[in-house]
C-alpha cells in the first residue's frame, strides 16, 4: 500500500470506516493520544478570559483622541519623510536614502514629550520609500486601535477614526481637519526637502544623526551605522520636542507586495465622507437629465433589459455622470467621489485586473451594496449594484465601453 493510499485510509479509519489493520492500528493510537484533549472550555471561562483581555478595547471611546491621532500619525509619517527625503550631498544621507528605498514593515512606539498631550502610542504598518505610500495603524496601549491611515501614491489619503467609526477620504492630508497638514503630502514634502537641501548629518555613537527640516518642523533621526536604517526619530516643532519615535522593527518586504497592502481594511458600518481641500464635505447638489459624450464609459443603450437613463449630477466641488440601468448604476467622475460610490466602500475590498490591464477594486458594504471602481487617468468609473450579495458588478465592469466606440 503506497504512503498516500495509507494516509487516506487512515483518515477513513478515523471516520469509522472499515479499513486494513495498519490504518486501524494507527487510528487507535491517534484516538488514544487525543481523547483527553477534547475537553470543553466553558462559556464562563471564555467570558472571564475575555474580560481580562478586552477592557482596554472597550475603554477606547472615552479618550480624547484627536491630538493623539494628529500627532501620532504625523510622527509615524515622519518615517515616510525620511524615506522620500533624498537631497544630494553627504554620503551618509545618500546611503540612508538607498538603504530605505524599498517597502518596509515597521513597528514603532511614539512617546510624547509632554505626557499629558497623549498616551504612549504604537504605530505599525507599511511604508514604500520609493513611491511614497504608507499604510499605518495607530494603537494606544490603553485603548486599542485608534486610527488607520492610508497614504496613496498620488498623495490622496484615507483615514479611519475608531472613536466615531468614520472614514475620511481626501485628495491630500491638508484637507483633513485637525490632521497632519503638510506632513502628509508626499510630493510637497519631497520638493521642500530637496529644494531646501535641509538635511545635515553627523556621527552619533555607533551611527549617525540626520536632521531634516520642513517648515517649522524638524526631524532628528538616529541612523544605524551599519545598515543606515533609522532607529529613532525626534519630532520638534519650533525647536521644542513634541514626540519621540522609537523604531522596534523595520523589515524589508519583497519587491512585489500584495495590492491590498495599500488598501484600507474594512471597517463595518463606517460612515464614509469625502473632504475637499477647503474642508467641505461632498454632497449631491443637483441632478438633471444629461447626455453621454463619446468619452463616457457605459454599458450601452440598455443592459440586461434596462434602458440607460443618463443624469448629470452636480456635487460639492465637482460633477459626475450617472447612468442608471435599474439595479446597476454606472458613474463617471473625477476627483470628487459621488456619495453613493463611497457608501458602498465600508466593508471590504477585492482587487483584480481587467484584460486591458487596469486594476479594479471591488468594494462591499455592510448594507449589501457593491461597487467596482476602475481608474482611467483623471477619470474614474464606478459600477454600483443596488442588489445585495451578488457579484453583478464584477461582470458589468468588464463590459464597460466608451459611448463613442463602434
Amino acid at each position, binding site marked *: 500500500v503506497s504512503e498516500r493510499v495509507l494516509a487516506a485510509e487512515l483518515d477513513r479509519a*478515523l471516520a469509522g470506516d472499515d479499513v486494513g489493520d495498519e490504518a486501524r492500528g494507527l487510528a487507535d493510537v*491517534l484516538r488514544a493520544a487525543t481523547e483527553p*484533549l477534547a475537553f470543553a472550555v466553558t462559556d464562563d471561562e471564555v467570558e472571564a478570559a475575555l474580560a481580562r483581555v478586552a477592557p482596554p478595547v472597550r475603554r477606547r471611546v472615552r479618550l480624547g483622541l484627536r491630538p493623539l491621532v494628529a500627532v501620532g500619525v504625523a510622527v509615524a509619517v515622519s518615517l515616510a519623510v525620511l524615506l522620500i527625503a533624498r537631497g544630494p550631498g553627504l554620503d551618509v544621507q545618500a546611503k540612508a536614502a538607498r538603504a530605505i528605498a524599498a517597502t518596509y514593515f515597521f513597528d514603532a512606539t511614539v512617546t510624547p514629550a509632554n505626557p499629558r498631550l497623549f498616551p504612549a502610542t504604537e504605530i505599525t504598518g507599511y511604508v514604500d520609500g520609493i513611491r511614497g505610500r504608507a499604510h499605518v495603524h495607530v494603537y494606544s496601549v490603553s485603548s486599542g486601535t485608534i486610527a488607520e491611515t492610508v497614504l496613496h501614491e498620488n498623495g490622496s489619503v484615507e483615514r479611519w477614526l475608531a472613536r466615531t467609526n468614520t472614514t475620511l477620504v481626501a485628495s491630500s492630508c491638508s484637507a483633513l481637519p485637525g490632521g497632519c497638514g503638510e506632513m502628509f503630502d508626499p510630493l510637497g514634502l519631497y520638493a521642500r526637502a530637496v529644494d531646501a537641501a535641509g538635511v545635515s548629518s553627523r556621527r552619533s555613537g555607533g551611527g549617525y544623526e540626520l536632521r531634516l527640516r520642513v517648515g517649522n518642523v524638524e526631524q532628528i533621526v538616529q541612523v544605524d551605522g551599519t545598515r543606515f536604517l533609522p532607529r529613532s526619530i525626534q519630532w520638534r516643532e519650533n525647536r521644542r520636542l513634541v514626540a519621540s519615535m522609537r523604531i522596534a522593527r523595520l523589515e524589508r518586504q519583497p519587491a512585489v507586495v500584495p495590492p491590498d497592502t495599500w488598501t484600507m481594511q474594512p471597517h463595518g458600518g463606517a460612515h464614509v465622507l469625502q473632504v475637499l481641500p477647503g474642508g467641505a464635505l461632498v454632497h449631491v447638489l443637483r441632478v438633471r437629465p444629461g447626455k453621454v459624450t463619446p468619452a463616457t464609459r457605459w454599458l450601452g443603450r440598455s443592459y440586461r433589459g434596462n434602458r440607460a437613463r443618463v443624469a448629470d449630477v452636480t456635487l460639492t466641488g465637482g460633477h459626475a455622470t450617472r447612468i442608471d440601468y435599474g439595479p446597476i448604476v454606472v458613474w463617471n467622475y473625477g476627483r470628487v467621489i459621488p456619495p453613493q460610490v463611497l457608501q458602498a466602500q465600508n466593508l471590504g475590498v477585492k482587487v483584480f485586473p481587467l484584460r486591458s490591464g487596469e486594476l479594479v477594486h471591488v468594494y462591499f458594504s455592510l448594507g449589501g451594496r457593491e461597487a467596482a471602481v476602475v481608474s482611467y487617468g483623471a477619470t474614474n468609473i464606478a459600477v454600483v449594484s443596488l442588489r445585495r450579495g451578488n457579484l453583478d458588478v464584477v461582470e458589468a465592469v468588464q463590459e464597460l465601453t466608451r459611448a463613442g466606440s463602434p
Partner: protein
Amino acid sequence: VDEGLDAYHAFRRDQTDFEALFRTHYPEIVRYLAARLGSRDDALDLASDVFLEAWRRVPGLQWRGRPVLAWLYRVAANMAADEVRRRARTVPPLGDPAARGDETDATADRLALTQAYAALPADHQLVVHLRLVEGRPFEEVAAIMGRSVGACQMLMLRAARSLRTTLRAEGVRSV
C-alpha cells in the same frame, strides 16, 4: 471566486470584531496549548496572552489567502515553545522518575502517551489537533496550515507512526 471571497470576508470580519474572534477561537487555542504544556490551567493563561497579542497585531495583518486562525495557531505555537523552553530551565520534565512517584500501569501508559504527543513536531501536532480534537475537515485543516489536503494527510500518517514508535519504545502495551 465565491470561496475566495468568502474566505476574504471571513478574514476581514475576524480582523474587525475582536470579541467575536476571541469567543470563537479561544477554546480551541486552549485545547491546543493544553497538549503542548500538559496543563489545562496553564493553557487558559497562555491562551489569554495569545489573544492579547492578537488584539495588538490582527488589525494590521495583510490578507495572504489564509484565515486569521492560522496566525493565531502560529503565535500559540511560538508562545508554547517559549514556555516549554523556559520550563526546561526551571522545572523537572514530566518524564523524570523522581517527579512521577508511584503509578499504576494505566497511569504510566497515559503519561507516556501524553509525553509522546507533546514531543511531536509542531506541524504534526497541529494537524492531529485540527483534525481529531477540533474535528475540522481536511480542507479546512489544509487552509489553516497553508498546505494541500494530501500533504496534511501525510503529516497525520507520520504523526501516528511517530507516536506508535515512541510508545512501543516506552513499553506501552496497548499500542
